[in-house]
């Protein structure tokens, strides 16, 4: 019985196995990025970037239809352009990152809509907006796995300066010039993972698999390696449980995954051992020293 619910969907149907493989790859790449977005108070930046890639993907779709590479490429270009331009403006002028990013992503969005309306075709962008993890083909799965691998490798390279840049940016500036490049590379990784996520979850929910696991992890660990591990694990668990939920109830898969993550999040807010609400209400007797 339990086997029928939890395991047989994956043994019986190939598309479920592909979906599971895709979601695991997405969790591995996206969740660590999400942790850093959260720690740098850039969670909403991720959301803004997700909007920025939409027109790029739409243009790719316009030019060559539902072509994986055209849409990925378009999304990457739009995302990189917005990330790099706003990063440069934030670093060289008084305007803060959030404000400059808001400006650029709105411009990107407006440009995309303008281009689409000039062509005047009524295109079905539901795929781009909400993705379809149950329809991953071999190519898409490979692209997702490739991007996740690149993400993990690059994160390993920039990990140290990225952490220092988060804690004490002035110190990093005095000992090394790697601050600005690190920041730009990190933004690039954000874009890569958003584009990665939109195949499975769509542009609007792609950021969910980055941010929600990071929020969950904050309630269970006080150190950053622990946080990353918990974020990846909870992203995988949400992905798996969301797929099962979607399979059994016909809830669309993307929203199902995010809703499961949201349940985990609510549970963590209540019962997490780092600043969880219940923990705050019943802290236990104070210690001697």
């Amino acid at each position, binding site marked *: 019985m339990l086997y029928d619910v939890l395991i047989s969907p994956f043994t019986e149907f190939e598309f479920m196995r592909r979906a599971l493989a895709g979601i695991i790859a997405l969790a591995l790449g996206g969740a660590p990025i999400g942790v850093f977005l959260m*720690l740098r108070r850039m969670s909403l930046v991720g959301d803004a970037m997700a909007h920025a890639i939409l027109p790029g993907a739409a243009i790719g779709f316009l030019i060559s239809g539902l072509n994986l590479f055209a849409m990925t490429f378009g999304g990457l270009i739009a995302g990189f352009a917005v990330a790099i331009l706003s990063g440069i403006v934030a670093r060289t002028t008084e305007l803060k990152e959030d404000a400059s990013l808001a400006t650029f992503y709105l411009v990107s969005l407006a440009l995309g809509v303008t281009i689409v309306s000039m062509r005047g075709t009524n295109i079905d962008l539901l795929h781009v907006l909400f993705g379809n993890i149950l329809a991953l083909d071999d190519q898409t799965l490979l692209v997702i796995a490739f991007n996740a691998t690149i993400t993990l490798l690059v994160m390993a*390279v920039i990990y*140290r*300066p990225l*952490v*220092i840049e*988060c*804690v*004490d*940016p*002035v*110190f990093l*500036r*005095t*000992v*090394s010039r*790697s601050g600005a490049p690190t920041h730009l590379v990190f933004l690039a990784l954000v874009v890569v993972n958003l584009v990665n996520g939109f195949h499975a979850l769509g542009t609007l929910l792609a950021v969910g698999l980055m941010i929600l696991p990071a929020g969950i992890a904050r309630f269970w*660990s*006080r*150190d*950053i390696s622990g*946080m990353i591990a918990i974020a990846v694990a909870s992203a995988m668990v949400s992905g798996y449980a969301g797929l099962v939920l979607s399979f059994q109830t016909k809830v669309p898969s993307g929203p199902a995954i995010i809703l499961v993550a949201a349940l985990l999040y609510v549970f963590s807010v209540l019962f997490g051992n780092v600043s969880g609400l219940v923990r705050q209400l019943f802290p236990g007797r104070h210690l001697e020293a």
Partner: protein
Amino acid sequence: MSAHLTFRDVTLGYDRHPAVHHLSGEVAPGALVALVGPNGAGKSTLFRGIVGMLKPLAGSISLGGLDARDIAYLPQSVDIDRSFPISVFDFVATGLWRSSGLFGGIGKQRQAKVLAALAAVGLNGFERRTIGTLSGGQMQRMLFARVLLQDARLIVLDEPFNAIDAKTSADLLKLVKHWHAEQRTVLAALHDMDLVRANFPETVLLAREPVAWGATAQVLTSDNLLVARRMCEAFDDSAALCAADHAPARAA
């Protein structure tokens, strides 16, 4: 031996308004120099110029062959994200950047160095605490431990003893003197005149314009201090251009 730091008619400031005006002078290697002046006198601005975070509006600062990595800089209002989940040990270990760089492992030898630095500032037993749990004084001790690990030829401390209790500042001052004994060059912005008179052989008195520079006893006279106190802090938006051939205003 030539000077570490040479200021040649340096003017530093913001939006063309000078915060340090026509400073010239030299700091010898191994010198222990106090930088004194009222709030808004340009002390922090001068330090930012030295570490290269601010480009001079005019004149030049030469580091006499020192690399940016040879300078340890402890800013006044440290821009540290104290909610970041990093342990005291890991934070202090970032001071090893110069030798470990991007990838160098923190092996046994370096771990021992970090522990020794923590012990030197009296933070034994704090290794695994996260930085958000430290008090203000403990935070300052931790920052000194990192400076210690940076093993820098030039150490720049911006008001290091502000809001620090007597015991902590005495401990940290001991470290400063230890660095001096090791022939490192130390520049510190300070407000406590008694502390400066007792511990710093050389002093620069700054009030946007350099007021005096030399042996501490000759610099910290009541006349000089009075001149410094009269400095007008406000920028004048309608100020005329500074005459370019204005004689360097270094008094001695």
